[in-house]
């Protein structure tokens, strides 16, 4: 803790005392990664999301896709999930006009807690339940340089939650990228949105970017009042602001301050597929120091995230979550062949025990980690990374009368190893093969451990939900072989990825269909979060993209996913919303075609998802119902009025006015018109 205190003191002292005045005018600067220059240099995106070390996307030792700023601009989308859903292996469940969940390689469900979402390496998912409220992310599409999508576990680098994948949203760097834009969008469902991004520079000393965004729309129409109560729906609206500042304190020392705030309201499905109107406030502050020292790139950072989530339908349920993360890291190329990263992370995570606010559940995690990338020959490189998380759980306060738990049950320590290993073999100038192994740890969330206790009154019976301090972390292990192929003669590239993944101690969500404690004369029945068994998955992803003469571009991908359940004896997976074999679509495909010529630009995307199943709820009891296969056609046409001003019309689901994609609200066709200024 002393080290952390000293780091905090140094960081805040520098910020407050104006360390910036020490900055010199040398041409040598400590580098926060200048993605733009490196991308122009190597003619391909550069990433740090694979190992924590800068790497060319093509030689990263993990399977990943990168969405560029140009892709985002041409997407015609007003949210990130729409863009992600066009990649191989990504499944998007749309619950409403402002709410959706993203799954990487199967296992998607309402409020899926398997995915780690970051902005510039800072977690932005809601840590109380480990899910991502995409509408609450404090980032505007116009300020995103690239979205890095790592498939499979990567918790050896990023820690808990990075089990199905990692989505790192990298914004433009105010020091290197002068991004200024203003966008106004209107559309069907009475959509209205405005985004502003402005970069400021004070010479080489201080660079800042601020962004502001707001949007609203009407909610999709409810076609089944028996499934979704009208009171559970509200018109989605979002408001967010962020500040990203970089100060060059000395030629070797750089400080970065990131502050963000967001507030959104939407209607969404909870993990048990019951809809609620939800309000979510988030606030985050991060301070980091980067020192280009003789012993490598030293980085220290500390950030705090706060979220306040109100479940409007459930009266008194307000989740207050606070996360503090402090990290120190050294990244060093020790010799021409080897790069090593050593890091230590501390995390404190707490939430109130709700809806009876009589206590709080919290944990502290200490996580040392190490990574080594080695160039074995001119064609072969190897990467190994390992991390150990030691989680100390605790509970302050008392429990509601119906909860049969004691605080001593929370005196628990969970220790878990994560590991990543990859071999990259560049067989020819055009062929790269990748063999990878990953072991990720999905920690129980605070809500599962004890942040959520509720007495539920159904029409004919009552049941109480409690946390479970004994729940075990899920371990996700992925074995994969990939082949990337450049096709320069036809200006294209392609890949094939084959993987086998196991999940042990899969976590289940409580429902009245799976009583953990039967009622007695004095006790109502109890249900809680629990481990429900194991699961296997085999999958195939293949994708290709390229450009054609006369301004044409194309991309296509196909994903096959097969999940096999291995339930624990006596466990009904449907009763725990854990029948992933049934709820994961087996086949998905995307096809994109675009053209640019003169001032015009046009793009179209076709998406297909095969049939799968979802959980309708009747009197609190889940069952399975078939969701038919569906196809979406999206498109965008843009015209450059001037070099700075673009007008665009885009549409989502142009082929159908309404498509059933879940047991929730049918997804409606949406049309947007936008005017964008860039300078």
């Amino acid at each position, binding site marked *: 803790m002393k080290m952390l205190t000293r780091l905090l003191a140094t960081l805040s002292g520098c910020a407050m005392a104006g360390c910036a005045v020490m900055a010199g005018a040398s*041409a040598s600067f400590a580098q926060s990664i200048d993605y733009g220059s490196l991308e122009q240099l190597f003619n391909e995106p550069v990433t740090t999301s694979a190992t924590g070390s800068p790497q060319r996307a093509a030689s990263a030792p993990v399977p990943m896709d990168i969405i560029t700023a140009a892709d985002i601009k041409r997407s015609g989308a007003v949210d990130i999930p729409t863009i992600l859903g066009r990649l191989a292996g990504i499944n998007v469940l749309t619950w409403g006009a402002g709410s959706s969940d993203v799954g990487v390689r199967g296992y998607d469900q309402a409020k899926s807690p398997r995915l780690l979402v970051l902005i510039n390496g800072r977690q932005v998912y809601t840590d109380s339940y480990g899910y991502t409220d995409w509408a609450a992310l404090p980032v505007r599409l116009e300020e995103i340089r690239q979205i890095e999508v790592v498939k499979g576990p990567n918790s050896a680098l990023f820690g808990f939650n990075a089990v199905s994948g990692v989505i790192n949203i990298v914004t433009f760097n105010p020091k290197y990228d002068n991004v200024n834009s203003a966008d106004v969008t209107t559309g069907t469902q009475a959509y209205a949105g405005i985004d502003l991004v402005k970069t400021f520079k004070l010479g080489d000393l201080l660079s800042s970017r601020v962004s502001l965004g707001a949007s609203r729309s009407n909610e999709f129409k409810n076609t089944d009042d028996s499934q979704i109560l009208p009171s559970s729906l509200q018109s989605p609206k979002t408001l967010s602001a962020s500040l990203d500042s970089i100060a060059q304190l000395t030629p070797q020392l750089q400080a970065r301050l990131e502050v963000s705030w967001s507030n959104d309201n939407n209607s969404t499905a909870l993990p048990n597929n019951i809809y609620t109107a939800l309000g979510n406030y988030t606030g985050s502050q991060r301070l980091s120091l980067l020192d280009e020292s003789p012993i490598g790139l030293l980085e220290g950072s500390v950030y705090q995230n706060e979220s306040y989530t109100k479940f409007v339908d459930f009266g008194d349920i307000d989740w207050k979550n606070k996360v503090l993360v402090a990290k120190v890291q050294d990244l060093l190329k020790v010799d*021409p062949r080897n790069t090593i990263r050593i890091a230590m992370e501390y995390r404190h995570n707490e939430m109130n025990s709700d809806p009876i606010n009589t206590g709080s559940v919290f944990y502290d995690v200490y996580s040392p980690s190490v990574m080594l990338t080695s160039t074995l020959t001119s064609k072969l490189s190897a990467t190994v990374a390992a991390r150990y998380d030691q989680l100390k759980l605790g509970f302050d306060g008392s429990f509601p009368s119906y909860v049969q738990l004691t605080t001593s049950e929370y005196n628990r320590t969970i220790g878990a190893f994560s590991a990543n290993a990859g071999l990259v073999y560049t067989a020819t100038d055009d062929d790269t093969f990748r063999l990878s192994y990953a072991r990720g740890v999905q920690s129980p969330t605070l809500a599962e451990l004890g942040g959520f206790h509720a007495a539920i009154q159904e029409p004919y019976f009552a049941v109480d939900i409690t946390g479970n301090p004994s729940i075990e972390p899920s371990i996700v292990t992925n074995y994969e072989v990939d082949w990337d192929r450049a096709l320069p003669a036809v200006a294209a590239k392609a890949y094939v990825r084959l993987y086998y993944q196991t999940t042990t101690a899969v976590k289940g969500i409580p429902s009245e269909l799976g009583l953990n404690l039967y009622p007695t004369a004095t006790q109502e029945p109890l249900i809680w979060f629990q481990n429900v068994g194991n699961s296997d998955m085999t999958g195939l992803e293949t994708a290709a993209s390229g450009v054609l003469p006369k301004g044409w571009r194309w991309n296509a991908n196909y994903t096959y996913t097969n999940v096999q359940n291995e339930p624990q004896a006596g466990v009904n997976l449907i009763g725990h919303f854990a029948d992933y074999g049934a709820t994961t679509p087996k086949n998905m495909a995307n096809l994109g075609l675009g053209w640019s010529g003169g001032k015009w630009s046009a793009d179209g995307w076709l998406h297909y998802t095969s049939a799968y199943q979802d959980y309708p709820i009747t009197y609190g009891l889940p069952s399975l119902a078939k969701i038919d296969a569906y196809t979406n056609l999206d498109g965008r046409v843009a015209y450059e009025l001037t070099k700075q001003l673009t007008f665009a019309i885009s549409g989502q689901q142009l082929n159908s006015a309404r498509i059933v994609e879940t047991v929730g609200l049918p997804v409606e066709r949406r049309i947007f018109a936008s005017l964008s200024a860039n300078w």
Partner: protein
Amino acid sequence: MKFRARWAWIIFSLILAQLAFPAYADTAKDIQVAGRALTFLENGPSGHVVIGVVFDPSKSASVAQKDAVMAALGSGLDVGSLTLTGKPMEVGAISGGVAALYLTDGLNFAAAGAAGKAHKLITISADSACVNSGACVMSVTTTPKVEIKVNRAAAAGIGVSFKSAFRMLITEI
């Protein structure tokens, strides 16, 4: 069936096209990437930068490459924060007043490298043999993909080093 046959021919033709066209060096791209690499030097150059384009007038390949480099640089090639111009020079005439030397193909790399080292100039070539031998500090090729190789001993010999992030993305020997 006709439709399938047509697609089969198209795919077959594309595969043939793959096999038929070997990759050729692109001098204009090479010099552009070489210039951009200079921006990742510690205490590197900024603004207007003159590159000495070293050639051997007795070797046609060298002269042709010199001409191609000079054409690419033209009256000033903007590369990131730098504006590059070129100054042709023969090995015997290597002197200061330039920020770096670009060694054309077919040169006596040892002699040109030694002259560059004597003037503390970073030496760049499209031929990785130059770097492997230690005569050059850096080699840059862009076809079929960008490859940058740096000889650390040669770099240290003239007192230059590259920024950490850049070093992690290139090949060092």
